[in-house]
């Protein structure tokens, strides 16, 4: 199955940001914008919501903290009690470094794994490069064409009046 896209090519960051705002204000849905580098403020104009990854990090961290404490208390307090340095079997200060490390480890790994799952990023992941110049010095705005609904000439016009230096069409197999 293939999908058809209209690609507006831009060569200036500020023009691009303004164009995104205008195109969205005109009621057109932007599929994706490709850029050679991260552009400040592009998330806001594209209306992308903030990532919820920090929430995942918090709960993974919390899991790490509880797991580490449970593990140490169970091991050193119940399963195989040992006297170390004359301290009680369950001595909280001695458990803190391991707890800290496991909190950080779980939060970090949890975030990375969640990120991979959510973005479906895996070794077989195929990247559709709409226009190779978006890896060099051009910004590419991709808009999906719905057969019979999208007015091609109006869209072409909209992109051009908003500073696109080129407007191309491309079919991408999904």
């Amino acid at each position, binding site marked *: 199955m293939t999908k058809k896209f209209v690609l507006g090519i831009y060569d200036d960051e500020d023009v691009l940001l303004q164009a995104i705002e205008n195109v969205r204000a005109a009621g057109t849905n932007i599929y994706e914008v490709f850029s050679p580098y991260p552009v*400040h*403020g592009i998330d806001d104009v594209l209306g992308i919501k*903030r990532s919820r990854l*920090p929430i995942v990090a*918090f709960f993974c961290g919390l899991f790490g903290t509880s797991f580490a404490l449970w593990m140490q208390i169970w091991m050193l307090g119940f399963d195989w009690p040992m006297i170390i*340095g*004359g*301290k009680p079997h369950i001595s909280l*200060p*001695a458990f*803190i*470094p391991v707890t800290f490390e496991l909190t950080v480890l779980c939060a970090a790994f949890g975030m990375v794994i969640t990120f991979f799952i959510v973005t479906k990023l895996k070794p077989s992941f195929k990247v559709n490069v709409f226009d190779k110049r978006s890896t060099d010095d051009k910004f590419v705005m991709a808009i999906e064409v719905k057969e019979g609904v999208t007015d091609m000439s109006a869209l072409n016009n909209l992109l051009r009046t908003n500073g696109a230096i080129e407007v191309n069409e491309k079919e991408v197999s999904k």
Partner: protein
Amino acid sequence: MTEERLIISRKTNNKFFLMIAIGVVLLIAGIIIAALGGGAEHAEGHGEAAAAGHEAVSWTKRLYVNLWLNNVYFTGIALVGVFFVAVQYVAYAGWSVLIKRIPEALGYYLPIGGAVMLIVFLLGGHDIFHWTHEYLYDVNDERYDPIIAGKAPFLNFWFFLIRMIAYFVLWILFFNWLRRNSINEDLHGGTSYYHKSIRISAMFLVVFGVTSSLSAWDWVLSIDTHWFSTMFGWYVFASWWVSGLAAITLTVIILKQNGYLKMVNANHLHDLGKFVFAFSIFWTYIWFSQFMLIWYANIPEESIYYIERLGGNDGHYKWIFFTNLIVNFAFPFLVLMTRDAKRQMIMLKIVTIAILAGHWLDFYLMMMPGTLRTGAGIGFIEIGTTLVFLGVFLLTFTKGLAKASLVPVNHPFVEESVHHHV
């Protein structure tokens, strides 16, 4: 870029004077109560008071220790102001330019801090520092203390005094140097002042690295003369630094709420919030590193420090010990964790006030057990002294802040700071 002048109204100044006046009244009331017989628990009779675990402490001693405590605390905040500016210069930071005048003006307290430090040491040195007593070094005296005598090459009256004067001379010198360049930049423009400031800042950071640790040993660690901790310089620095950051952030918020600093937005607050959040954790890290090693090794000469603050002194300091950790670690850690909290003035305001109070308690916990022991408390003398110092600090700070434009108009990175985005 337009200048923005802070105007301190008569009303605001009167508030600061009122603060000092209330402080003085409370202080006098506290002294009278103390001089008449050590407060309520003392009135019940000496035997009972001793049984209740309260040691009689002369009001002069309590006053000197309080003066010392507050002066070390506020001098630290003033010093951190200069340190913050220096760090920003050396890091070629752009974001902080709009708020740079606030840490810069904190340094105006340094000369007062130096004078008070000197006077309190000369008058009340014996009350604060056990090691200042001559008999400890006299082999023929029965109170001779070989451990303290061994520290005499470092801990002796004259060297201590010279060091104290040297710290303040160096700090004030660098503060004035940086401040002069900053103001000249406003007047004449150009990048030469900026480049010069970077060189001055780099030199100051070296000086600060040495003097902040040394002053912490001198002014705080030497109270517990027998005890030592190689982490202590860092510990005091961490406490000063996070209080200073909280003071800077709180000032930015208060100025903004009064219509100043119009170009400062949520992005700048976010960065300040990250600083406060990060360094409250850093303080905890240092706190724990010091505590755990001593707890684990359990060598009596080391663990006495924590025994005095936990079960010792009849558990007098136990609540402060745990309050310290809750207010300075758990509270900022949980409250400032989210991005939204760091971008909201109300959240930052609550946390910074808590941190400022919490680190005052931290210094209280560092100084009181070694000096007043069970005779310490938080009463009229403590609150009064703190109010007087706070009033004087705010007077000098706001006066310094009003001396120059709040926006460093000719700083090369001011434009970058205006467009700061995180």
